[in-house]
Protein backbone atom coordinates (compact mmCIF):
# COMPACT_ATOMS: atom_id res chain seq x y z
CA UNK A 1 0.00 0.00 0.00
CA UNK A 2 1.47 3.35 -1.03
CA UNK A 3 0.97 5.93 1.70
CA UNK A 4 -0.82 9.16 0.95
CA UNK A 5 1.76 11.17 2.83
CA UNK A 6 4.54 9.84 0.57
CA UNK A 7 2.46 10.78 -2.48
CA UNK A 8 1.83 14.31 -1.26
CA UNK A 9 5.46 14.90 -0.22
CA UNK A 10 6.76 13.52 -3.51
CA UNK A 11 4.28 15.61 -5.49
CA UNK A 12 5.53 18.74 -3.70
CA UNK A 13 9.15 17.93 -4.62
CA UNK A 14 8.13 17.32 -8.24
CA UNK A 15 6.30 20.65 -8.49
CA UNK A 16 9.49 22.45 -7.53
CA UNK A 17 11.81 20.37 -9.70
CA UNK A 18 9.61 20.94 -12.74
CA UNK A 19 9.48 24.70 -12.22
CA UNK A 20 13.18 25.21 -11.43
CA UNK A 21 15.30 22.56 -13.17
CA UNK A 22 15.50 22.21 -16.93
CA UNK A 23 15.57 18.47 -17.77
CA UNK A 24 19.00 17.25 -18.91
CA UNK A 25 17.82 15.90 -22.25
CA UNK A 26 16.41 19.28 -23.23
CA UNK A 27 19.49 21.11 -21.92
CA UNK A 28 21.86 18.91 -23.96
CA UNK A 29 19.72 19.45 -27.04
CA UNK A 30 19.76 23.21 -26.57
CA UNK A 31 23.52 23.31 -25.97
CA UNK A 32 24.06 21.38 -29.21
CA UNK A 33 21.84 23.90 -31.05
CA UNK A 34 23.64 26.87 -29.52
CA UNK A 35 26.92 25.53 -30.91
CA UNK A 36 25.71 25.63 -34.51
CA UNK A 37 23.35 28.63 -34.45
CA UNK A 38 24.88 31.37 -36.60
CA UNK A 39 22.13 34.00 -36.49
CA UNK A 40 23.49 36.70 -34.16
CA UNK A 41 20.16 37.53 -32.48
CA UNK A 42 18.96 33.92 -32.28
CA UNK A 43 22.32 32.92 -30.83
CA UNK A 44 22.12 35.69 -28.23
CA UNK A 45 18.73 34.36 -27.18
CA UNK A 46 20.02 30.80 -26.75
CA UNK A 47 22.97 31.99 -24.66
CA UNK A 48 20.63 34.04 -22.46
CA UNK A 49 18.42 30.99 -21.95
CA UNK A 50 21.40 28.82 -20.97
CA UNK A 51 22.41 31.46 -18.46
CA UNK A 52 18.82 31.63 -17.22
CA UNK A 53 18.75 27.89 -16.41
CA UNK A 54 21.88 28.33 -14.28
CA UNK A 55 20.41 31.28 -12.41
CA UNK A 56 17.13 29.43 -11.81
CA UNK A 57 19.03 26.55 -10.22
CA UNK A 58 21.39 28.75 -8.21
CA UNK A 59 18.60 30.94 -6.83
CA UNK A 60 16.11 28.08 -6.65
CA UNK A 61 13.57 30.20 -8.50
CA UNK A 62 11.24 29.30 -11.37
CA UNK A 63 12.92 29.33 -14.81
CA UNK A 64 10.14 31.35 -16.37
CA UNK A 65 7.68 33.83 -14.91
CA UNK A 66 4.89 32.11 -16.80
CA UNK A 67 5.06 28.91 -14.82
CA UNK A 68 2.50 27.27 -17.08
CA UNK A 69 -0.51 25.20 -16.14
CA UNK A 70 0.49 22.38 -13.79
CA UNK A 71 -0.99 19.00 -14.72
CA UNK A 72 -0.47 15.42 -13.60
CA UNK A 73 -0.02 12.16 -15.41
CA UNK A 74 -0.36 9.13 -13.17
CA UNK A 75 0.90 5.76 -14.30
CA UNK A 76 -0.12 2.82 -12.15
CA UNK A 77 1.42 -0.62 -12.08
CA UNK A 78 -1.31 -3.25 -12.12
CA UNK A 79 -0.44 -4.47 -8.61
CA UNK A 80 -0.21 -1.06 -6.98
CA UNK A 81 -2.63 0.12 -4.33
CA UNK A 82 -3.01 3.55 -2.84
CA UNK A 83 -4.00 4.45 0.68
CA UNK A 84 -7.48 5.95 0.51
CA UNK A 85 -7.93 5.02 -3.15
CA UNK A 86 -8.08 7.25 -6.24
CA UNK A 87 -10.12 10.02 -4.63
CA UNK A 88 -7.52 10.44 -1.88
CA UNK A 89 -4.79 10.45 -4.55
CA UNK A 90 -6.50 13.27 -6.45
CA UNK A 91 -6.94 15.31 -3.28
CA UNK A 92 -3.24 14.88 -2.49
CA UNK A 93 -2.28 16.12 -5.97
CA UNK A 94 -4.60 19.12 -5.71
CA UNK A 95 -3.19 19.98 -2.28
CA UNK A 96 0.40 19.69 -3.54
CA UNK A 97 -0.41 21.91 -6.53
CA UNK A 98 -2.00 24.58 -4.37
CA UNK A 99 0.70 24.66 -1.71
CA UNK A 100 3.55 24.64 -4.25
CA UNK A 101 1.96 27.62 -6.01
CA UNK A 102 2.49 29.79 -2.95
CA UNK A 103 5.68 28.22 -1.59
CA UNK A 104 7.86 28.19 -4.76
CA UNK A 105 6.14 30.60 -5.82
CA UNK A 106 4.43 29.82 -9.13
CA UNK A 107 2.26 32.23 -11.02
CA UNK A 108 -1.40 31.54 -10.17
CA UNK A 109 -2.32 31.10 -13.80
CA UNK A 110 -5.59 29.24 -13.55
CA UNK A 111 -8.76 31.26 -13.73
CA UNK A 112 -12.41 30.60 -14.53
CA UNK A 113 -12.70 30.93 -18.34
CA UNK A 114 -15.68 33.28 -18.20
CA UNK A 115 -15.68 34.98 -14.81
CA UNK A 116 -11.84 35.08 -14.56
CA UNK A 117 -12.07 34.07 -10.90
CA UNK A 118 -8.58 33.27 -9.59
CA UNK A 119 -8.13 31.14 -6.46
CA UNK A 120 -4.45 32.14 -6.54
CA UNK A 121 -3.44 28.48 -6.23
CA UNK A 122 -3.70 26.92 -9.72
CA UNK A 123 -6.63 24.78 -8.61
CA UNK A 124 -10.17 25.02 -9.94
CA UNK A 125 -12.69 23.24 -12.13
CA UNK A 126 -10.72 20.63 -14.08
CA UNK A 127 -7.45 22.10 -12.85
CA UNK A 128 -4.93 20.61 -12.49
CA UNK A 129 -5.73 18.01 -15.14
CA UNK A 130 -5.07 14.49 -13.88
CA UNK A 131 -4.69 11.77 -16.50
CA UNK A 132 -4.11 8.08 -15.98
CA UNK A 133 -2.30 5.18 -17.59
CA UNK A 134 -1.69 1.62 -16.46
CA UNK A 135 1.07 -0.93 -16.88
CA UNK A 136 0.57 -4.69 -16.77
CA UNK A 137 3.08 -5.29 -13.98
CA UNK A 138 4.42 -3.46 -10.96
CA UNK A 139 3.56 -2.41 -7.42
CA UNK A 140 4.54 1.20 -8.05
CA UNK A 141 2.95 4.39 -9.28
CA UNK A 142 4.66 7.04 -11.40
CA UNK A 143 3.81 10.65 -10.64
CA UNK A 144 4.58 12.90 -13.57
CA UNK A 145 4.00 16.62 -13.50
CA UNK A 146 4.14 18.80 -16.58
CA UNK A 147 3.76 22.57 -16.32
CA UNK A 148 2.89 23.22 -19.93
CA UNK A 149 3.27 26.84 -20.83
CA UNK A 150 2.12 29.07 -23.57
CA UNK A 151 -1.03 29.94 -25.44
CA UNK A 152 0.63 29.46 -28.80
CA UNK A 153 2.23 26.69 -30.81
CA UNK A 154 -0.67 24.25 -30.84
CA UNK A 155 -3.04 23.50 -33.67
CA UNK A 156 -5.34 20.78 -34.98
CA UNK A 157 -6.55 19.96 -38.45
CA UNK A 158 -8.66 17.25 -40.00
CA UNK A 159 -6.63 15.98 -42.93
CA UNK A 160 -7.65 13.14 -45.21
CA UNK A 161 -5.79 10.12 -46.56
CA UNK A 162 -5.40 11.84 -49.93
CA UNK A 163 -3.54 14.72 -48.23
CA UNK A 164 -0.77 12.19 -47.67
CA UNK A 165 2.63 12.83 -46.13
CA UNK A 166 2.95 16.06 -48.15
CA UNK A 167 -0.21 17.36 -46.50
CA UNK A 168 1.12 16.42 -43.08
CA UNK A 169 4.38 18.18 -43.87
CA UNK A 170 2.57 21.32 -44.93
CA UNK A 171 0.47 21.53 -41.78
CA UNK A 172 3.59 20.93 -39.72
CA UNK A 173 5.34 23.82 -41.51
CA UNK A 174 2.27 26.05 -41.25
CA UNK A 175 2.14 25.50 -37.49
CA UNK A 176 5.82 26.30 -37.03
CA UNK A 177 5.81 29.31 -39.34
CA UNK A 178 2.68 30.86 -37.88
CA UNK A 179 3.51 30.37 -34.21
CA UNK A 180 7.24 30.80 -34.77
CA UNK A 181 6.77 34.41 -35.92
CA UNK A 182 7.93 36.72 -33.14
CA UNK A 183 8.78 33.59 -31.19
CA UNK A 184 5.27 33.10 -29.86
CA UNK A 185 5.86 29.33 -29.61
CA UNK A 186 8.88 30.01 -27.33
CA UNK A 187 11.05 27.97 -29.66
CA UNK A 188 13.29 26.06 -29.98
CA UNK A 189 10.75 23.58 -28.70
CA UNK A 190 10.08 19.89 -28.53
CA UNK A 191 7.45 19.49 -31.22
CA UNK A 192 4.90 16.77 -30.57
CA UNK A 193 2.70 15.56 -33.39
CA UNK A 194 -0.41 13.44 -32.99
CA UNK A 195 -1.68 11.65 -36.08
CA UNK A 196 -4.98 9.79 -36.16
CA UNK A 197 -7.23 8.84 -33.27
CA UNK A 198 -10.23 11.16 -33.15
CA UNK A 199 -10.17 14.91 -32.62
CA UNK A 200 -9.79 14.71 -28.84
CA UNK A 201 -7.41 11.74 -28.72
CA UNK A 202 -5.35 13.24 -31.56
CA UNK A 203 -4.78 16.32 -29.41
CA UNK A 204 -3.95 14.13 -26.42
CA UNK A 205 -1.45 12.08 -28.44
CA UNK A 206 0.31 15.18 -29.79
CA UNK A 207 0.52 16.82 -26.41
CA UNK A 208 1.87 13.66 -24.83
CA UNK A 209 4.37 13.27 -27.69
CA UNK A 210 5.66 16.75 -26.85
CA UNK A 211 5.58 16.53 -23.06
CA UNK A 212 6.07 12.87 -22.20
CA UNK A 213 8.87 11.91 -24.58
CA UNK A 214 12.42 13.16 -24.21
CA UNK A 215 14.86 14.74 -26.65
CA UNK A 216 16.66 11.98 -28.57
CA UNK A 217 13.84 9.46 -28.15
CA UNK A 218 12.59 7.70 -31.29
CA UNK A 219 9.27 6.12 -32.21
CA UNK A 220 9.71 2.31 -32.39
CA UNK A 221 8.14 2.22 -35.87
CA UNK A 222 11.25 2.81 -38.05
CA UNK A 223 9.27 4.67 -40.73
CA UNK A 224 7.78 7.02 -38.14
CA UNK A 225 11.25 7.48 -36.62
CA UNK A 226 12.48 8.52 -40.06
CA UNK A 227 9.66 11.05 -40.34
CA UNK A 228 10.56 12.45 -36.91
CA UNK A 229 14.12 13.02 -38.07
CA UNK A 230 13.00 14.49 -41.40
CA UNK A 231 10.56 16.89 -39.72
CA UNK A 232 13.17 18.03 -37.24
CA UNK A 233 15.54 18.88 -40.08
CA UNK A 234 12.74 20.51 -42.06
CA UNK A 235 11.72 22.71 -39.11
CA UNK A 236 15.29 23.82 -38.60
CA UNK A 237 15.65 24.69 -42.30
CA UNK A 238 12.88 27.31 -42.41
CA UNK A 239 15.44 30.00 -41.72
CA UNK A 240 13.76 30.99 -38.47
CA UNK A 241 15.33 30.67 -35.05
CA UNK A 242 14.61 31.65 -31.46
CA UNK A 243 12.09 34.49 -31.09
CA UNK A 244 11.41 34.35 -34.84
CA UNK A 245 14.79 35.92 -35.63
CA UNK A 246 16.86 34.77 -38.58
CA UNK A 247 18.45 31.47 -37.59
CA UNK A 248 17.92 27.72 -37.48
CA UNK A 249 16.85 26.90 -33.94
CA UNK A 250 13.20 25.91 -34.16
CA UNK A 251 12.93 22.22 -33.28
CA UNK A 252 14.96 20.61 -30.48
CA UNK A 253 13.35 17.34 -31.39
CA UNK A 254 10.23 16.08 -33.10
CA UNK A 255 8.15 13.27 -31.57
CA UNK A 256 5.28 11.65 -33.41
CA UNK A 257 2.59 9.42 -31.90
CA UNK A 258 -0.19 7.73 -33.81
CA UNK A 259 -3.57 6.22 -33.03
CA UNK A 260 -5.98 4.27 -35.22
CA UNK A 261 -8.54 6.61 -36.80
CA UNK A 262 -11.69 6.62 -38.91
CA UNK A 263 -11.00 5.05 -42.30
CA UNK A 264 -11.88 8.29 -44.12
CA UNK A 265 -9.75 10.68 -42.07
CA UNK A 266 -6.21 11.50 -40.95
CA UNK A 267 -6.40 13.85 -37.96
CA UNK A 268 -3.29 15.80 -37.10
CA UNK A 269 -2.27 17.93 -34.13
CA UNK A 270 0.93 19.87 -33.47
CA UNK A 271 2.15 20.92 -30.02
CA UNK A 272 5.21 22.89 -28.93
CA UNK A 273 6.82 22.24 -25.55
CA UNK A 274 8.70 25.46 -24.92
CA UNK A 275 12.16 26.66 -23.90
CA UNK A 276 11.21 25.94 -20.30
CA UNK A 277 10.15 22.33 -20.85
CA UNK A 278 8.91 21.73 -17.33
CA UNK A 279 8.50 18.06 -16.47
CA UNK A 280 9.51 15.97 -13.49
CA UNK A 281 8.87 12.33 -12.63
CA UNK A 282 9.02 10.07 -9.60
CA UNK A 283 8.29 6.40 -9.11
CA UNK A 284 6.87 5.50 -5.72
CA UNK A 285 7.13 1.85 -4.75
CA UNK A 286 4.92 -0.10 -2.39
CA UNK A 287 7.93 -0.21 -0.02
CA UNK A 288 7.83 3.60 0.25
CA UNK A 289 11.01 4.03 -1.83
CA UNK A 290 10.96 7.00 -4.21
CA UNK A 291 13.07 7.33 -7.36
CA UNK A 292 13.24 10.68 -9.18
CA UNK A 293 13.90 10.99 -12.89
CA UNK A 294 13.12 13.31 -15.82
CA UNK A 295 12.06 10.77 -18.48
CA UNK A 296 8.35 10.00 -18.09
CA UNK A 297 8.81 6.84 -20.19
CA UNK A 298 5.08 7.03 -20.81
CA UNK A 299 4.95 5.42 -24.23
CA UNK A 300 5.74 1.81 -23.37
CA UNK A 301 4.90 -1.12 -25.63
CA UNK A 302 1.72 -1.51 -23.59
CA UNK A 303 0.59 2.08 -24.25
CA UNK A 304 1.14 1.55 -27.98
CA UNK A 305 -0.41 -1.93 -28.16
CA UNK A 306 -2.32 -2.88 -31.31
CA UNK A 307 -3.69 -6.26 -30.21
CA UNK A 308 -6.95 -7.27 -28.53
CA UNK A 309 -5.27 -9.08 -25.65
CA UNK A 310 -2.01 -8.30 -23.92
Amino acid at each position, binding site marked *: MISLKTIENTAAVLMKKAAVEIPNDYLSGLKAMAKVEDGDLSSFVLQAMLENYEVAKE*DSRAMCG*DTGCPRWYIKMGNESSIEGGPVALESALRRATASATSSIP*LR*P*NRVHPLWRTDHDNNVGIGAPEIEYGFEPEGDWIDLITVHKGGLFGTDYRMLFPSDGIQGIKRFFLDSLVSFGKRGLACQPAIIGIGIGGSKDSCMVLGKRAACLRVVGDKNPDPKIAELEEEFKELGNS*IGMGAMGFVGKSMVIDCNIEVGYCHTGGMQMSVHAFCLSSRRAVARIYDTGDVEYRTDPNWFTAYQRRETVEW
Partner: protein
Amino acid sequence: MVSQKTLTKIQLNTCPTADELAELNIGDVVYLNGLVYTARESVYTGVLDGDLEIPSEFNISEGANFHCSPAANQHEDGSFSLGAVSATASFRFSKWIGRWLEKTKSKIVIGKGGMSTNDYAKHFVPNKTIYLTTVGYGTGALLGRGVKKVKSLYWKKELGLAQAMWVLEVKNFGPFLVECDIKGNSLFEREHKKISLKIDKIYEGTRPAILKRLGETDDRKDELI
Protein backbone atom coordinates in the same frame (compact mmCIF):
# COMPACT_ATOMS: atom_id res chain seq x y z
CA MET B 1 30.94 28.01 -31.15
CA VAL B 2 30.08 30.02 -34.24
CA SER B 3 31.54 33.53 -34.09
CA GLN B 4 28.98 36.25 -33.46
CA LYS B 5 28.59 39.90 -34.13
CA THR B 6 28.49 41.44 -30.65
CA LEU B 7 25.27 43.21 -29.78
CA THR B 8 25.41 46.65 -28.16
CA LYS B 9 24.59 46.54 -24.43
CA ILE B 10 23.07 49.56 -22.69
CA GLN B 11 22.03 50.45 -19.13
CA LEU B 12 18.89 52.61 -19.17
CA ASN B 13 16.80 54.39 -16.57
CA THR B 14 13.07 53.59 -16.68
CA CYS B 15 12.45 57.32 -16.95
CA PRO B 16 14.92 58.07 -19.73
CA THR B 17 15.67 61.40 -21.38
CA ALA B 18 14.66 61.99 -24.99
CA ASP B 19 18.35 61.90 -25.97
CA GLU B 20 18.93 58.56 -24.30
CA LEU B 21 15.93 57.11 -26.13
CA ALA B 22 17.02 58.57 -29.47
CA GLU B 23 20.34 56.73 -29.23
CA LEU B 24 18.74 53.30 -29.08
CA ASN B 25 18.58 51.12 -32.17
CA ILE B 26 16.48 48.04 -32.79
CA GLY B 27 18.41 44.94 -31.73
CA ASP B 28 20.31 46.71 -28.92
CA VAL B 29 20.42 44.87 -25.61
CA VAL B 30 19.01 46.91 -22.72
CA TYR B 31 19.17 46.52 -18.92
CA LEU B 32 16.81 48.72 -16.89
CA ASN B 33 17.18 50.57 -13.60
CA GLY B 34 14.32 52.26 -11.78
CA LEU B 35 10.63 51.42 -11.51
CA VAL B 36 8.61 48.91 -13.46
CA TYR B 37 4.88 48.33 -13.09
CA THR B 38 2.85 45.42 -14.43
CA ALA B 39 -0.32 46.27 -16.31
CA ARG B 40 -2.31 43.96 -18.57
CA GLU B 41 -6.00 43.27 -19.41
CA SER B 42 -7.63 43.97 -16.06
CA VAL B 43 -5.55 47.01 -15.16
CA TYR B 44 -6.17 48.53 -18.60
CA THR B 45 -9.93 47.98 -18.50
CA GLY B 46 -10.18 48.89 -14.81
CA VAL B 47 -8.33 52.18 -15.17
CA LEU B 48 -9.43 53.20 -18.68
CA ASP B 49 -13.06 52.08 -18.60
CA GLY B 50 -13.75 51.19 -14.98
CA ASP B 51 -13.42 52.84 -11.62
CA LEU B 52 -9.79 52.06 -10.74
CA GLU B 53 -7.71 55.16 -10.10
CA ILE B 54 -3.95 55.11 -10.57
CA PRO B 55 -2.59 55.64 -7.03
CA SER B 56 -1.32 59.18 -6.61
CA GLU B 57 1.73 58.19 -4.52
CA PHE B 58 3.12 56.42 -7.55
CA ASN B 59 4.31 58.61 -10.43
CA ILE B 60 3.41 56.24 -13.21
CA SER B 61 5.13 58.28 -15.94
CA GLU B 62 8.46 57.35 -14.34
CA GLY B 63 7.77 53.65 -14.60
CA ALA B 64 8.03 51.19 -17.46
CA ASN B 65 4.84 49.32 -18.32
CA PHE B 66 5.61 45.59 -18.14
CA HIS B 67 3.13 43.19 -19.78
CA CYS B 68 3.63 40.64 -17.08
CA SER B 69 2.30 38.71 -14.14
CA PRO B 70 5.10 37.63 -11.84
CA ALA B 71 5.43 34.22 -10.22
CA ALA B 72 5.00 35.81 -6.82
CA ASN B 73 3.05 35.66 -3.63
CA GLN B 74 2.07 37.97 -0.79
CA HIS B 75 2.29 36.49 2.71
CA GLU B 76 -0.21 37.14 5.49
CA ASP B 77 2.12 39.67 7.14
CA GLY B 78 2.10 41.68 3.90
CA SER B 79 5.63 40.69 2.81
CA PHE B 80 6.31 39.32 -0.64
CA SER B 81 8.18 36.46 -2.21
CA LEU B 82 8.92 36.96 -5.86
CA GLY B 83 10.61 34.30 -7.97
CA ALA B 84 10.57 34.59 -11.72
CA VAL B 85 9.10 37.30 -13.94
CA SER B 86 8.39 36.96 -17.65
CA ALA B 87 6.35 38.88 -20.16
CA THR B 88 3.07 37.94 -21.74
CA ALA B 89 2.25 38.46 -25.44
CA SER B 90 1.60 42.15 -26.07
CA PHE B 91 -0.37 42.11 -29.32
CA ARG B 92 -3.50 41.38 -27.26
CA PHE B 93 -3.32 44.82 -25.66
CA SER B 94 -3.50 46.79 -28.90
CA LYS B 95 -7.00 48.12 -28.19
CA TRP B 96 -5.90 49.80 -24.94
CA ILE B 97 -2.29 50.84 -25.52
CA GLY B 98 -3.01 54.20 -27.17
CA ARG B 99 -5.19 55.53 -24.39
CA TRP B 100 -2.86 54.01 -21.79
CA LEU B 101 0.23 55.78 -23.11
CA GLU B 102 -1.70 59.02 -23.44
CA LYS B 103 -2.78 58.77 -19.82
CA THR B 104 0.42 57.54 -18.21
CA LYS B 105 3.13 59.02 -20.46
CA SER B 106 5.23 55.93 -19.78
CA LYS B 107 8.27 55.96 -22.05
CA ILE B 108 8.98 52.25 -22.06
CA VAL B 109 6.70 49.29 -22.69
CA ILE B 110 8.14 45.84 -22.01
CA GLY B 111 6.45 42.72 -23.31
CA LYS B 112 6.59 39.59 -25.38
CA GLY B 113 6.56 39.49 -29.16
CA GLY B 114 6.07 43.18 -29.84
CA MET B 115 3.05 44.96 -31.27
CA SER B 116 2.20 45.89 -34.86
CA THR B 117 4.02 48.69 -36.69
CA ASN B 118 0.62 50.30 -37.00
CA ASP B 119 0.41 50.47 -33.18
CA TYR B 120 3.92 51.87 -33.06
CA ALA B 121 3.18 54.58 -35.61
CA LYS B 122 -0.17 55.53 -34.05
CA HIS B 123 0.59 55.29 -30.33
CA PHE B 124 4.28 54.88 -29.59
CA VAL B 125 5.94 57.41 -31.90
CA PRO B 126 3.70 60.39 -30.92
CA ASN B 127 4.33 59.67 -27.22
CA LYS B 128 8.07 59.03 -27.81
CA THR B 129 7.75 55.60 -26.27
CA ILE B 130 9.89 52.59 -27.11
CA TYR B 131 9.06 48.89 -26.88
CA LEU B 132 11.47 46.40 -25.33
CA THR B 133 10.94 42.69 -25.79
CA THR B 134 11.97 40.13 -23.21
CA VAL B 135 14.38 37.49 -24.44
CA GLY B 136 13.71 33.82 -24.89
CA TYR B 137 10.95 33.74 -23.81
CA GLY B 138 11.58 33.82 -20.94
CA THR B 139 14.59 34.54 -18.96
CA GLY B 140 12.31 34.62 -15.91
CA ALA B 141 14.98 33.74 -13.38
CA LEU B 142 17.43 36.33 -14.72
CA LEU B 143 14.74 39.00 -14.61
CA GLY B 144 13.70 37.86 -11.13
CA ARG B 145 17.25 38.55 -9.98
CA GLY B 146 16.97 42.09 -11.28
CA VAL B 147 13.98 42.86 -9.07
CA LYS B 148 15.37 44.44 -5.92
CA LYS B 149 12.10 45.00 -4.14
CA VAL B 150 8.35 44.79 -4.54
CA LYS B 151 7.48 48.41 -3.87
CA SER B 152 3.74 47.93 -3.80
CA LEU B 153 0.92 45.74 -4.99
CA TYR B 154 -2.33 47.39 -6.07
CA TRP B 155 -5.79 45.84 -6.60
CA LYS B 156 -4.84 42.34 -5.44
CA LYS B 157 -8.33 41.78 -4.09
CA GLU B 158 -10.16 43.19 -7.09
CA LEU B 159 -8.04 41.61 -9.84
CA GLY B 160 -6.24 38.60 -8.31
CA LEU B 161 -2.48 38.15 -8.00
CA ALA B 162 -1.88 37.55 -11.72
CA GLN B 163 -3.74 40.62 -12.97
CA ALA B 164 -2.96 43.01 -10.10
CA MET B 165 -0.54 45.89 -10.59
CA TRP B 166 2.88 45.10 -9.15
CA VAL B 167 5.29 48.00 -8.76
CA LEU B 168 8.87 46.74 -8.75
CA GLU B 169 12.19 48.41 -8.02
CA VAL B 170 14.71 47.05 -10.50
CA LYS B 171 18.45 47.16 -11.02
CA ASN B 172 20.39 45.74 -13.95
CA PHE B 173 17.02 44.27 -14.96
CA GLY B 174 17.30 42.40 -18.24
CA PRO B 175 18.25 41.45 -20.82
CA PHE B 176 15.75 43.06 -23.18
CA LEU B 177 16.03 43.77 -26.89
CA VAL B 178 14.92 47.04 -28.44
CA GLU B 179 12.04 45.91 -30.66
CA CYS B 180 10.59 49.34 -31.46
CA ASP B 181 12.82 52.40 -31.43
CA ILE B 182 11.75 56.01 -31.16
CA LYS B 183 11.05 56.17 -34.91
CA GLY B 184 8.73 53.17 -34.81
CA ASN B 185 11.07 50.70 -36.54
CA SER B 186 10.40 47.09 -35.58
CA LEU B 187 13.07 44.43 -35.08
CA PHE B 188 10.54 41.59 -35.51
CA GLU B 189 9.30 43.01 -38.80
CA ARG B 190 12.82 43.44 -40.10
CA GLU B 191 13.66 39.81 -39.27
CA HIS B 192 10.32 38.60 -40.59
CA LYS B 193 10.99 40.26 -43.95
CA LYS B 194 14.37 38.55 -44.24
CA ILE B 195 12.90 35.13 -43.42
CA SER B 196 9.97 35.65 -45.81
CA LEU B 197 12.33 35.93 -48.79
CA LYS B 198 13.08 32.22 -48.58
CA ILE B 199 9.87 30.88 -47.14
CA ASP B 200 8.37 29.56 -50.40
CA LYS B 201 11.31 27.25 -50.96
CA ILE B 202 10.71 25.23 -47.81
CA TYR B 203 7.13 24.54 -48.95
CA GLU B 204 8.18 23.10 -52.31
CA GLY B 205 6.47 19.78 -52.97
CA THR B 206 3.81 20.25 -50.28
CA ARG B 207 0.13 20.75 -51.15
CA PRO B 208 -2.63 22.79 -49.57
CA ALA B 209 -5.04 20.69 -47.50
CA ILE B 210 -7.91 19.19 -49.49
CA LEU B 211 -10.50 20.60 -47.10
CA LYS B 212 -10.03 24.36 -46.79
CA ARG B 213 -10.79 26.58 -43.81
CA LEU B 214 -12.73 29.83 -44.09
CA GLY B 215 -10.50 32.86 -44.18
CA GLU B 216 -7.34 30.82 -44.63
CA THR B 217 -4.35 32.55 -46.16
CA ASP B 218 -1.75 30.64 -48.10
CA ASP B 219 0.75 33.49 -48.00
CA ARG B 220 3.33 32.73 -45.34
CA LYS B 221 4.74 36.22 -45.70
CA ASP B 222 1.67 37.70 -44.02
CA GLU B 223 2.07 38.97 -40.48
CA LEU B 224 -0.48 37.45 -38.13
CA ILE B 225 -0.95 40.13 -35.49
